[in-house]
């Protein structure tokens, strides 16, 4: 089956039985290969599948085996030609063991496969007998008739003298080419047309999966199996990634539990759930977590970043205090203390004086003091006083500024310090120092303030520095112990993310796989059914009296569980086939299975060569075998090699049509072939047997023309077939033509003119060319229908025999 057919079937099933969701895309992608599956998993839209570059080409034309020429191979010495009827029908090649008949099938196998299964796996010694001992020049050639072609296909191999078994090259149509060029390589593997006794015997011995492969190979489901495998691998890879991610978790957990960091606790919680909260983990590890106020880390970092009172600021503040204070004092020491008041007084005095007439001092009553000079002096004095006052104010202002500046330096202990708690750093000393620091005199006394600053400042600075250092140290220590954990987690995070995405992918893949499995089972059952039924039918015929009955054959299972199940019942009880069947029955079973396989319509090989199937078979089975082979021979060229006379005997007893060729070997490996029987010949023999009977009553004589007529019809059929083959007519046409004739005259017309409708001309033709035959033919036509016979019965039969030879001259294979 071509790929396109399979894809079409899958597409149709996707419509009628869709799988869930994303699985649809996966199923389609699976047929395009692993990359398509991967990209579908990633979420890319699938490119509309280019209909697979299908092997939509039609297979090679059907082929029948026409001739086989063998020289110097195995038991065959001088060149021998085997001619076969290249069409449906049964041919038996009979010869004793060692007559060289198997050499023909082995030669064909050698030609096609370049090797021989008989030697495969055996020590080299077996191979040494490949070349005939008497005739050391080896060549094998086969001619095949192809459907619709006039020219036969010629395959040959030649060995140079002295070359080894491998020293040949396959030549097709005159040019060295491999089998693939005519499209036979794959069919040879799937529908091998050569069945050897050895193969039959061991077919059921091999493991159940080998048997499965041998039969499933032809069902054309290779692409489906490949798609399943693609999905399976993809799923395994995805599951592996999940497993890796999960597998790392216990180790991480151990690390985290050992770490005292509170981030570890966060991560552990996030890991505890079935679906990991990867974002939380990522934040915790990269430090972006909004750590709450209570967290130790936060405290530590606060502590490490306590506001630092710099020494310079302290010194400066103290200095300023002292400076401004000194300035104020200095200014106050002068009259500056009262400068303001005095200035105010003087101002008032001046104001009063402005409006006074006399120069009497209103205060002490002294006369003549408030003069113009006095006014000038007072004015100057006023200015001085005012500037002094200003200076004082300024200095006081400065002092206040210095004080307030210093006050600002004195802060309350920060919350971090107060609530440091158990951050692992001792903050008691610092807290105390700060508290003392905070209790600065706030009475405006700069000196006291300065003293306070001077005393407690350095202490504070030292204590805070200690705390900061300790905190920083602690943080570093924690960081050092946390880093490896963090790194481990960071390394694991991408895996974890991938694994999380993978979970959904696994579900989809499993769903797609399950769907494909169901589709596979369905298709496989469908496609195998014809083979199973044919096998069952074959077995029914072959088993004859065996009390083993074969029920349903099924191909089941997949991968390591694949096998062919045979429902076998012995006298109604279920049993295991291989345990209860005799070797002969097993051979029959194997034949039942492999004949359908070789006869499948897809196979270009319309011939099947069976080497010695009769071994180990019961006589009754041989009849069944003959029937089965004959049935297969209705549509296939069946060539059977046997040393056992029971098979040709059974064929004759059953009245089955077959050509029997005898193989005889002389000295020096001279092998001779002689056809001993053709269908026409047999009918003549039967007719003769009756004709020669003494005392045959007249009424019985009319039976003879009946047999003669059958002989003529058989000869006509053969002649017509040969001619149509020569003309290169397609096989289907030939078979259709052979259905047409119904009477003797139409058969003769077909044979003589190639046209069954010209039956009216047969008589005149015979009169003209073979006048002795005209009367016998008339008798054949008439004699069947009644009247008694008068005349020479034996002569009549002889004439008919002669006519059969005329209609259908013996081919080279006929004796």
């Amino acid at each position, binding site marked *: 089956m071509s790929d396109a057919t399979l894809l079409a079937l899958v597409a149709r099933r996707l419509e009628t039985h869709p799988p869930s969701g994303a699985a649809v895309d996966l199923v389609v992608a699976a047929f395009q290969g692993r990359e398509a599956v991967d990209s579908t998993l990633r979420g890319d839209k699938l490119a509309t599948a280019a209909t697979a570059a299908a092997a939509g080409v039609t297979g090679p034309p059907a082929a029948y085996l026409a001739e086989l020429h063998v020289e110097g191979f195995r038991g065959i010495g001088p060149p021998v030609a085997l001619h076969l009827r290249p069409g449906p029908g049964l041919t038996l090649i009979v010869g004793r063991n060692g007559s060289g008949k198997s050499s023909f099938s082995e030669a064909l196998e050698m030609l096609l496969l370049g090797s021989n299964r008989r030697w495969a796996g055996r020590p080299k010694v077996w191979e040494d007998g490949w070349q005939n001992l008497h005739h050391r020049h080896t060549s094998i050639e086969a001619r095949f008739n192809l459907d619709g072609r006039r020219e036969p296909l010629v395959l040959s191999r030649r060995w140079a003298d002295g070359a080894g078994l491998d020293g040949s090259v396959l030549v097709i149509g005159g040019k060295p080419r491999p089998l693939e060029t005519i499209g036979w390589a794959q069919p040879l593997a799937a529908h091998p047309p050569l069945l050897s006794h050895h193969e039959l015997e061991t077919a059921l011995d091999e493991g159940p999966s080998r048997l499965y492969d041998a039969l499933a190979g032809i069902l054309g489901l290779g692409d489906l199996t490949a798609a399943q495998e693609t999905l399976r691998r993809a799923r395994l890879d995805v599951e592996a990634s999940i497993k890796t991610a999960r597998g790392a978790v216990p180790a991480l957990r151990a690390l985290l539990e050992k770490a005292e960091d509170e981030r570890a606790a966060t991560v552990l919680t996030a890991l505890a759930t079935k679906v990991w909260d990867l974002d939380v983990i990522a934040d915790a590890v990269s430090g972006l977590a909004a750590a709450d106020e209570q967290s130790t880390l936060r405290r530590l970092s606060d502590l490490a970043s306590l506001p630092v009172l710099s020494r310079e600021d302290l010194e400066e503040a103290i200095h300023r205090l002292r400076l401004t204070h000194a300035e104020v004092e200095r200014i106050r020491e002068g009259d500056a203390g009262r400068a303001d008041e005095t200035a105010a007084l003087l101002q008032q005095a001046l104001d009063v004086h402005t409006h006074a007439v006399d120069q009497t001092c209103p205060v002490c009553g002294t006369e003549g003091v408030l003069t113009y000079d006095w006014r000038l002096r007072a004015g100057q004095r006023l200015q001085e006083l005012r500037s002094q006052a200003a200076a004082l104010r300024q200095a006081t202002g400065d002092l206040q500024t210095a004080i307030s500046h210093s006050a600002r330096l004195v802060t309350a202990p920060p919350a971090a310090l107060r609530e440091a708690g158990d951050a692992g750093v001792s903050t008691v000393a610092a807290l105390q120092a700060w508290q003392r620091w905070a209790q600065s005199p706030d009475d405006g006394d700069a000196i006291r303030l300065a003293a306070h600053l001077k005393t407690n400042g350095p202490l504070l600075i030292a204590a805070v520095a200690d705390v900061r250092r300790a905190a920083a140290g602690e943080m570093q220590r924690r960081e050092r112990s946390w880093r490896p954990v963090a790194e481990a987690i960071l390394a694991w995070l991408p895996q974890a993310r991938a694994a999380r995405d993978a979970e959904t992918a696994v579900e989809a893949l499993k769903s797609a796989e399950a769907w494909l499995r169901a589709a596979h089972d369905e298709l496989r059952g469908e496609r195998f059914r014809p083979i199973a039924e044919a096998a069952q039918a074959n077995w029914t015929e072959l088993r004859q009296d065996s009390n083993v009955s074969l029920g349903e054959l099924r191909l089941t299972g997949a991968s390591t569980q694949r096998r062919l199940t045979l429902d076998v019942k012995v006298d109604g009880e279920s049993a295991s086939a291989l345990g209860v069947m005799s070797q002969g029955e097993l051979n029959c079973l194997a034949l039942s299975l492999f004949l359908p396989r070789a006869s499948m319509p897809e196979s270009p090989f319309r011939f099947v060569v069976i080497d010695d199937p009769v071994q180990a078979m019961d006589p009754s089975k041989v009849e069944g075998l003959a029937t089965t082979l004959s049935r297969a021979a209705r549509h296939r060229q069946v060539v059977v090699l046997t040393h056992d006379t029971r098979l040709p005997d059974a064929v004759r007893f059953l009245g089955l049509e077959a050509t029997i060729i005898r193989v005889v070997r002389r000295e020096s490996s001279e092998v001779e072939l002689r056809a001993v029987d053709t269908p026409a010949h047999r009918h003549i023999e*039967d007719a003769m047997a*009756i004709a020669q*009977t003494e*005392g*045959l*009553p007249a009424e019985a004589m009319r*039976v003879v023309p009946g047999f003669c007529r059958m002989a003529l019809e058989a000869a006509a059929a053969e002649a017509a077939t040969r001619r149509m083959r020569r003309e290169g007519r397609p096989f289907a046409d030939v078979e259709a033509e052979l259905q047409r004739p119904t009477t003797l005259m139409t058969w003769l017309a077909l044979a003589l003119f190639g046209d069954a409708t010209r039956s009216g001309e047969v008589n005149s033709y015979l009169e003209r060319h073979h006048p002795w035959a005209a009367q016998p033919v008339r008798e054949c036509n008439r004699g069947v229908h009644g009247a008694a016979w008068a005349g020479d019965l034996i002569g009549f039969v002889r004439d008919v025999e002669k006519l059969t030879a005329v209609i259908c001259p013996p081919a080279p294979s006929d004796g």
Partner: protein
Amino acid sequence: MEVEATAGLWPRAAAFLARQAVEVALARLWGVTAPGLERTSGRCQVLCVGAFLDDRDLGGRVVLAWNLLSQACHHRVYELAPTAAELNRTLETAWELADACESVCRRIER
């Protein structure tokens, strides 16, 4: 009766009887259709029966049965005897033959 003495001989006995049955049926047929034919060889007779009964299929089966019975009746000690099932089939054919012969004869005699 000594049953042991007869052990293993039943195939041949059955074959004899079956063959006789066939011969009788054929004789009856020939008596009506082709007198004298019963004196010819068995092979000739069975070859002809299909035509006279106008049943080629039955004729073929009679040939088979006849071949088997002949072999069984003439077999040497060391040859394989027919199996029970084979004999059964042959007997069935013999019955069929007898019936067919009888009906043909009746038709002709009427």
